[in-house]
């Protein structure tokens, strides 16, 4: 007789199951965003600036949205419609009233407004919206005591190119009317703060982009492997459904279906691990990275002859996603080497580092026919010319991924050197700068 449960038990059981299925630890908040918020808060309180605001350019670069606002007491919760960015030709920008903050982003230039009268004369000034009403209390920007005093807005840039390509946000500092206007020294201090915010924001965006790429790859792998394994099982079922079931075929197919699913499972586990791990430089044990790459790269780990020239329990500082990418580089190069070496000669992996060295070096050597120089250079050129969007399109299949190796190397400024001597064999040397050095 089927066992029955009262509804209360079912609800508790569900809650317990949900609790069990929850991740051990949620993804950590990026320390880069924490740093940005800290700078905003410090500026608002330390410089007696009253209000400091961060605006961010959207991913599609069409809008400038309010990211965070601080006054001298702390964070202010505000909501508002983002500005629409049009990135006009700066020589012919005749638009009026589209917003001074928007103007700063589009022109990529700082803007200082010493008083309300100046502000209202600026062609981009579009009136005081609901945000200003909340920031300057009920009396509004015209109040002689608490109304608008002055502001200084600085574009946050990633480089010296056109604003359309380089502006990622705007940092704006405002002061109420009863205080003096920002002097030159204060504005220089705000420029410095903007530089720090810009750097932290770039780091955050870079990590965010990497995570999106990693998750996109996971979805791609999962979809392909599931489709293939479903198809293999469908063929097996059809063969079992014959008047004379073809058991031998089904037996040969089951390991293939299992292999497809195991492969997908391994990849997804690795992706989740990268996503859940710390997104700021953390000590990782070199041995764990190397062992994980060997395990994923070889059916028989004995195929890899590993030698160490490091201190015991050497560690390297990486973000969790960088660790994942370093492992991917090693995995791809080991697979390549395995494919090009003979069946009897093991692939050699040598890891070299020492406390006085600023880098960790991985040397992968095979003694087979070697990968042709033009193949390697083609992969390197493709990675060098590729955009971030193309990197998202590039996926790792069941083969090896030289292009991906070079893409990561470019992204993190790691060095990958290839040597293919005339007498055969291939050597890849991967060098990872190690800011903090290896630790015992």
């Amino acid at each position: 007789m089927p066992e029955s449960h009262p509804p209360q038990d079912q609800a508790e059981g569900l809650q317990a199951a949900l609790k069990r299925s929850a991740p051990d630890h949620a993804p950590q908040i990026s320390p880069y965003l924490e740093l940005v918020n800290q700078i905003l808060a410090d500026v608002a309180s330390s410089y007696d600036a009253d209000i400091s605001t961060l605006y961010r350019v959207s991913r599609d670069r069409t809008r400038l949205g309010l990211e965070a606002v601080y006054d001298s007491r702390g964070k202010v919760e505000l909501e508002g419609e983002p500005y629409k960015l049009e990135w006009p030709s700066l020589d012919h920008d005749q638009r009026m009233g589209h917003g001074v903050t928007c103007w700063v982003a589009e022109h990529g230039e700082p803007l200082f407004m010493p008083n309300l009268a100046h502000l209202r004369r600026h062609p981009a000034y579009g009136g005081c919206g609901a945000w200003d009403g909340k920031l300057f209390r009920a009396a509004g920007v015209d109040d002689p005591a608490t109304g608008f005093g002055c502001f200084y807005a600085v574009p946050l840039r990633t480089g010296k190119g056109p604003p359309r390509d380089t502006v990622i946000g705007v940092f704006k500092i405002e002061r109420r009317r009863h205080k003096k206007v920002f002097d030159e020294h204060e504005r220089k201090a705000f420029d410095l703060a903007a530089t720090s915010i810009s750097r932290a924001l770039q780091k955050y965006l870079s990590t965010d982009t990497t995570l999106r790429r990693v998750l996109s790859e996971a979805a791609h792998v999962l979809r392909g492997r599931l489709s293939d394994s479903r198809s293999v099982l469908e063929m097996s079922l059809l063969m079992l459904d014959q008047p004379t079931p073809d058991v031998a075929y089904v037996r040969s197919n089951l390991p293939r279906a299992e292999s497809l699913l195991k492969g997908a499972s391994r990849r997804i586990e690795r992706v989740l691990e990268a996503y859940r791990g710390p997104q700021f430089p953390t000590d990782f044990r070199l041995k764990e990275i190397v062992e994980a790459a060997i395990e994923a790269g070889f059916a028989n780990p004995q195929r890899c002859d590993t030698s160490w020239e490091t201190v015991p329990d050497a560690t390297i500082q990486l973000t969790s996603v960088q660790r994942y990418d370093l492992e991917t580089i090693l995995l791809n190069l080991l697979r390549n080497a395995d494919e090009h070496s003979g069946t009897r000669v093991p692939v050699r992996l040598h890891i070299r580092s020492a406390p006085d060295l600023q880098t960790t070096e991985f040397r992968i050597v095979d003694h087979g026919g070697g990968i042709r120089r033009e193949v390697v250079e083609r992969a390197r050129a493709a990675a060098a010319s590729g955009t971030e969007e193309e990197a998202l399109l590039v996926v790792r299949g069941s083969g090896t991924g030289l292009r991906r190796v070079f893409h990561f190397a470019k992204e993190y400024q790691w060095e990958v050197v290839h040597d293919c001597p005339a007498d055969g064999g291939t050597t890849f040397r991967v060098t990872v700068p190690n800011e903090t050095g290896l630790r015992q």
Partner: protein
Amino acid sequence: MTGRILVADDSTEWSKSFCGFLSRMKYQAESVATGAELRDAITTRPDDYDVLIVDNSMPEEHGEEEIPYCGVRNLGRLVSHFWDQGKAPPILAHVIVRSIYSKSDLDVLRQQDDAETKEGCERVAKWFDRNVTLDDLMSAITELIGDMRRRR
């Protein structure tokens, strides 16, 4: 023998299984895993195959990253190759793509790509998502082989 089929897919677990299935269905089937192997098989033995089932995203060569439109690009290259020789083999008129990329993804890539990719796209007789059912895939093969026989 009811037909000769070439399967080009870098997922060898699937392609081996599918070739085994096809041989039990009385087809003659072979598999390749890269773009270079695909070109080599068709250029050296152009009349040995009737239908091509190709994964659109494969590595060009072993040791390289898979390329999202490798399948159709190589089709285009094969068309150019046989155009120079004045005679295209039947397999180039009987191409089935089974791809993780949808047709709309390919349209985006095609806009930025070369003449060979465009030519290859024109040669595709049937386009399936990777999770196509076996029934639909086998129906497409039967239809293309039937078409080939009628032409003969």
